[in-house]
């Protein structure tokens, strides 16, 4: 079985400790090494684990960001981590329990759907630290990480409102769930703030989880929005985004990516991307310490958990005026001068359009 793997030596080649010890007491090196191995093994080799939701890990979006973070940890430390892509709902609890029983620590879950299960499982494994992204679970061994997506979608909404020439912008969401409605609401509020004349066309790709991975339908919706005169389309649909961005590029209109920086996919067509730094969450949690201890982290614009992507691929699209408006809105939200309405608080969106 390929579960546990042990490095050949406990000192890696670039470890500064290696030279000093081996130079001083070369003959004892092996002995010291094996003693150290026995002492620290339980702590050092508690493998971290990450559980991806049913969407799979290579979704070019949310889960893939988590994988990127885990991989970055693996590349930097040379450590191995456990991972599983769920295939069924029943595996949710199963994977949590199996990883916890095998001593994996911390166990990171990528997605709000784990919340109910984790509430049941966490008390059974007080020694294991759990990290859940996008939901809050109150337990002494759970770190909950939530994102204020409405803040970042407000920012991209401001950019869309300023960029539109037709006073019509669109958003293509993934599955019609409260989380995506929250994003759509923040976006509409941002558009309204920047351009009160603008109209927002909203579409969702679907009502089943297939909506997260349906680029063809995403492209159709984008074309239909373009036909309704929308000239900026915000893609908030996970793996469906590739189709939305492609269709926007084909139609010669602007698009906005989400989760990871998707500006490079169609330079000159992707206005910006709403960034959700899930990778940092996983990376920090794997490193241990506070990020894997109990508590609630609210990631927003102020603490760098969210942002908008400005790079060489969209530099030509973002003029000084737009940049200034975004910076101003960023500061206003980060300092609390503007509070963007959160759809999931009351299931209503105050945007007019």
């Amino acid at each position, binding site marked *: 079985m390929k579960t546990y793997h042990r490095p050949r030596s406990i000192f890696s080649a670039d470890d500064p400790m290696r030279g000093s010890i081996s130079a001083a007491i070369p003959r004892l090196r092996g002995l010291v090494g094996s003693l150290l191995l026995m002492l620290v093994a339980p702590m050092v080799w508690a493998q971290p684990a990450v559980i991806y939701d049913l969407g799979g890990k290579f979704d070019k979006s949310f889960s893939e960001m988590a994988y990127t973070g885990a991989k970055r940890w693996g590349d930097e430390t040379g450590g191995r981590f456990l991972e599983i892509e769920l295939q069924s709902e029943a595996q949710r609890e199963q994977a949590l329990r199996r990883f916890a029983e095998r001593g994996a620590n911390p166990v990171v879950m990528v997605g709000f*759907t784990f919340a109910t299960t984790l509430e049941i499982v966490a008390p059974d494994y007080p020694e294991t630290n759990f990290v859940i992204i996008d939901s809050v679970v109150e337990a002494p061994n759970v770190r909950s990480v939530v994102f204020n997506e409405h803040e970042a979608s407000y920012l991209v909404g401001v950019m869309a409102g300023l960029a539109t020439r037709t006073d019509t912008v669109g958003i293509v969401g993934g599955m019609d769930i409260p989380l995506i409605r929250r994003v759509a609401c923040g976006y509409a509020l941002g558009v309204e703030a920047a351009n009160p004349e603008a109209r927002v066309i909203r579409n969702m790709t679907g009502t*089943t989880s297939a909506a997260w991975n349906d680029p063809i339908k995403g492209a159709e919706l984008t074309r239909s929005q373009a036909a309704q005169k929308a000239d900026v389309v915000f893609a908030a649909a996970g793996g469906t985004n590739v189709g939305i961005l492609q269709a926007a590029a084909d139609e010669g209109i602007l698009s906005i990516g989400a989760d990871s920086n998707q500006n490079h996919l169609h330079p000159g067509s992707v206005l910006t991307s709403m960034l959700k730094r899930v990778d940092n969450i996983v990376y920090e949690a794997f490193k241990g310490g506070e990020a894997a201890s109990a508590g609630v982290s609210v990631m927003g614009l102020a603490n760098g958990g969210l942002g908008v992507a400005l790079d060489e691929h969209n530099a030509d699209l973002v003029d000084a005026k737009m940049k200034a408006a975004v910076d101003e809105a960023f500061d206003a939200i980060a300092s609390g001068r503007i509070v963007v309405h959160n759809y999931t608080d009351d299931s209503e969106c105050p945007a007019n359009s």
Partner: protein
Amino acid sequence: MQRTMSDRVDIVLIPIISLFLAFSISALIIAGIGEDPFEAAALMVSGALGSAYGWGYTLYYATNFIFVGLAFAVAFHARLFNIGGEGQAMLGALGTALVALHIPWPHWSLALLGCGIGAALFGAFWALIPAWMQARRGSHIVITTIMFNFIAAALLNYLLVNHLRPEGSVAPGSALFPDAVHLPTLHDILSPLGFAFSKSTPANITAFLSVAAAILLWFFLWRTRTGYEIRTFGHSENAARYAGIDPFRITLIAMGLSGALAGLMALNATMGESERLILNPTEGAGFIGIAVALMGRCHPLGIVLASILFGFLYQGGAELALWTSIPRELIVVIQALVILFTGALDNMVRMPIERLLARSKRARSKA
């Protein structure tokens, strides 16, 4: 019933050869991606059948498959190809959830009965609409039932996002069912008898219900007048009509029963496992049910056995996903190979064997 030699070959030998072929090709593929197929096989077997924990999950999956497999089989005996088991089971889950959430049940046994009626009625209702359209309007049942799967998914999504979701929750799911409707798990049932069964597995009392349903269905199909009529109708609609069997009635009975059985799957998945209504309560089991029923030759005993095989594939696959780097898509490939060989490529094994048997019989009769 007298079993002939070729019957025994049909039921035992051919499925075993087909399985062997499917697993051999799977092994080649696993070796092809650089993993050890024998290790993988050992991990699957020990993970799914080697412990109470493994059995707990294997039986949980098998229970789902038995219900939807029986559902497909009863319609298929009337030659109605019901591929709407998925949607009917979703409606069953909705019925279960509404009954469990809105009636203050004093005890789980009453709740099981109540939820069972709710699940069966909702599932049957969802199957009866296409059945009526088939019987009266001639709308083909394959088309309508698959369409109804999508309508069911959209309906469930609408209700979960807009009505059943507890205030403030982000996830599209209903509130948890009250404690009183918690079904006893196999651990709860077996520990007073002295068996230590794994505590954290989802297998529950509905596993026994599914077997009871299989026995009842066998009795219904082969020992009652209506069952006979269903099978007659399936073999020849014209003959059935000539014998005075009402096609409209048979279509509605077969499909209604089929939908009700599919709906009952929710007792295991929704009431027994998630204990709340979730967005995708069936997870494709409705489609696996078709494969299970075809593999089990639409006979209840065959369906139970095929369901346990697929339960093993699901739970063994989960263990592979947990502890090896075999991607989950490959586990689907293994499941697909089993379906391909036992269902679609059945004649590839059957024909040479039948020829072989016929030749040996001829040789014997000559001698």
